[in-house]
C-alpha cells in the first residue's frame, strides 16, 4: 500500500505543479512559481547531504558555479540552453567531488566551515573574472524566445525529475548507507562499505542538482551577480529544510513553498525581511524541531518516527 500510495502522491503533486506551471498566466505568479521550484530543489539537495549527517554550506558556491557556467556557456559560447544547463550541472558535480574529497576526510564541522569559506571565496572570484561580468554580473542570459512561455514548465519539470531521482536514491541501498554513515559509520565500515567514497559521491550528486538549479536560476532571472550566491543562499535553503521538517522528504519542498510565499509579501517590509527569515528559523528550531510536517504528523497520527512518514503525513 505504502509504495503505491507514494507513487500516487507523486503523480498528484507533480502533475498539479506542472499543470499550474502551464495554467498560470500572471507574470508575477509565474516568477514566484519558478522561485519556489528552484528553492525546493536547492533545499532538497541540502537535505540529501544532511542524510549522512553533514551540512553542505558550499551549496551557495556550487549553485553559483552552476549559474555562472550556464550563463557563460550560453551567452559566450552560444550553447543551446538545455545543453548549457546540463553541462553546468556536470561541471558543478565534478568540482564538488574534488571539494568533497578534500574536506570530507575530517568529520564534523570542518566540511561545514570550509563550505562557508569556499562560498565567500567563489563570490570574490566571480567578481575578479571579467569574462563573466565581474562585479556587475552577467546580463542577457535569455532562453530561446520559443521557450519564454514554457519556462515555468521547463523549470518545474526539471525540478520534479530531480526530486523524484533524489527520492528513489534515498529509498535505495545508497540511502541506507547514508543513514548508516550518519548514525554509526563504523558499522558500515566494518561490513566493508567504503563510506568515504559514498560521502564524496553523495556530495557531488547533491551538487549536480545544485548546479542545475543554478543554471535554471540564471535563465529565469536572465541576470546574475556575485552577490546572488553569498552564504545567505545556503542559510535560506537551510531555513526551508528546517521549517518544512528535515525528517521528511517533502519537508524542504513544503518549507520552500511556505517561506518563498511568505517572503514575497515580506519584500514590502524593506530591510525588515531579515526579521522574517531569522524569526522563522529560530521559532522552527526552538518550538517545532520537526518542522511543519512534524507538527502535522503529531496532529494527524501517532505513527512512529520514520522517514517513510512522508507518505503517512499527507493523506
Amino acid at each position, binding site marked *: 500500500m505504502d509504495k503505491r500510495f507514494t507513487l500516487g502522491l507523486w503523480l498528484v503533486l507533480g502533475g498539479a505543479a506542472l499543470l499550474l506551471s502551464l495554467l498560470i498566466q500572471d507574470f508575477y505568479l509565474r516568477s514566484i512559481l519558478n522561485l519556489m521550484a528552484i528553492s525546493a530543489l536547492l533545499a532538497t539537495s541540502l537535505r540529501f547531504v*544532511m542524510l549522512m*549527517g553533514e*551540512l553542505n554550506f558550499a551549496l551557495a558556491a556550487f549553485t553559483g558555479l552552476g549559474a555562472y557556467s550556464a550563463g557563460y556557456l550560453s551567452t559566450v559560447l552560444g550553447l543551446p540552453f538545455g545543453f548549457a544547463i546540463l553541462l553546468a550541472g556536470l561541471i558543478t558535480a565534478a568540482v564538488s567531488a574534488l571539494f568533497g574529497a*578534500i*574536506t570530507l*576526510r*575530517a568529520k*564534523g*564541522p*570542518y566540511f*561545514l*566551515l*570550509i563550505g*562557508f*569559506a*569556499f562560498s*565567500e*571565496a567563489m563570490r*570574490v*572570484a566571480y*567578481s*575578479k573574472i571579467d569574462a563573466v561580468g565581474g562585479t556587475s554580473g552577467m546580463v542577457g542570459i535569455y532562453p530561446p524566445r520559443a521557450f519564454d512561455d514554457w519556462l515555468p514548465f521547463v523549470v518545474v519539470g526539471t525540478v520534479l525529475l530531480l526530486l523524484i531521482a533524489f527520492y528513489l536514491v534515498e529509498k535505495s541501498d545508497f540511502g541506507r548507507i547514508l543513514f548508516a554513515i550518519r548514525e554509526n559509520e563504523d558499522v558500515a565500515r566494518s561490513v566493508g562499505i567504503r563510506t568515504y567514497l559514498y560521502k564524496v559521491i553523495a556530495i557531488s550528486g547533491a551538487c549536480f542538482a545544485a548546479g542545475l538549479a543554478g543554471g535554471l536560476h540564471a535563465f529565469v532571472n536572465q541576470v546574475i551577480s556575485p552577490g546572488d550566491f553569498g552564504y545567505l543562499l545556503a*542559510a535560506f535553503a*537551510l*531555513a526551508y529544510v*528546517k521549517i518544512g521538517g528535515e525528517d521528511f522528504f517533502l519537508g524542504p519542498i513544503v518549507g520552500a513553498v511556505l517561506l518563498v510565499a511568505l517572503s514575497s509579501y515580506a519584500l514590502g517590509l524593506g*530591510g*525588515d*525581511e*531579515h*526579521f522574517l*527569515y*531569522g*524569526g*522563522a*528559523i*529560530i521559532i*522552527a*528550531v*526552538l518550538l517545532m*524541531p520537526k518542522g511543519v510536517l512534524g507538527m502535522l504528523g503529531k496532529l494527524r497520527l501517532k505513527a512512529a518516527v520514520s522517514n517513510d512518514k512522508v507518505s503517512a503525513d499527507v493523506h
Partner: protein
Amino acid sequence: MQTFIQLSATALQIGAVYVLFSLGLTLIFGVMRIVNFVHGHIFSVAALVVAYLLPALAAGGLSAPAAYVLASFVGIAVALSLGALLYIFGFRHFQRDLVGSFILSIGLVLLLDGVLLHVFGGAVRGVPEIFPGRVSIGGAQVTIQRLFLCAVAVLMAVSLYLALGHSRLGKALRAVSYDHEAAMMVGIPYSRIAFLGFMIASLLAAIAGVLLAPVTIVSPVIGTDYLIKGFIAVIIGGLGSVPGAILGSIFVASIETFGSYYLDSSYATLAIFGLVIIVLLFWPKGVFGRG
C-alpha cells in the same frame, strides 16, 4: 627591511584582533561542540554601544579616556547580557548538536542584523581617538591606540592560556572539551562549565569590540568580516585548540597584510581562502586539531 618591519607590525596588530575572535570561537567549540555564527554580533553590539555613548559622554563633559572607559564598560555589559540571553534561551538546548546549533545561530544572525539596523541605524559612526599620538618601533609607525589594542589582546590571550592550563575552571574546561561524559562522571558540572565557557568567549568578543571601536568603521555589519577571518583562523589552527587559534590568526593576518601589499587586497582575500583548502589537504583537522 623598513617595509617588512612595518608590514609585520601591521600583521601583528590585525592578528591580535583575530586572536580575540578565534579564541572565543575555539573555546565555544571545544566546550559545547557547536559552531557559533552570532559571535560576530556580540562583537558588533559592544562596538556600536561604545560608538553610540562615547560622543554623548564626551559632550557631557567627561575627558575622552574617562568617557571611553565608561562607554566600554557599558558596551561589554550589554554584549555580555546578549551573550547570556543567547545561551540561556538558545544554545543551552543545542549542546553538542552541531547542525541544530548552527541553524539556530544562522537564524539569530539574520534576526540580529535586522535588530541592530533598527536600533543603531545603518549610518557609520565615528569614535574620536582616545589615546592620540604614535610611536616608531624599528621604523614602523604604530598608533598608541593600536599598541594599546595589541597589549590587551596579548594580555587576554596569555591569561586565557594560563587559566586553561592551571586554574580549576581551566582544567574543567579542558576536561569537558576532551571528553565531556568522563568529565561529568568525575563530577564536573558540565552545564555550568559550558555556560562559563560561552560567557568567556562572549567577553573576548566584547573586549575586541570596544577596543576596535576607536580604530575602525563601526556599523551594524562590521562583525561579519572579523567572524569569517576568525573562523578561517580556527580551521587552520584546528578547532578547539588555543595555540592553533593564536597561530591561525597570525597566519591569516600575515597573508592579508603581505598579500594586499604585494598583490592587491581583493586577491589577498582570495589567497586566504585558497590557503585554507591547501592546509586541509595536509592536516584534515587543522594543524593542531585532534581526533
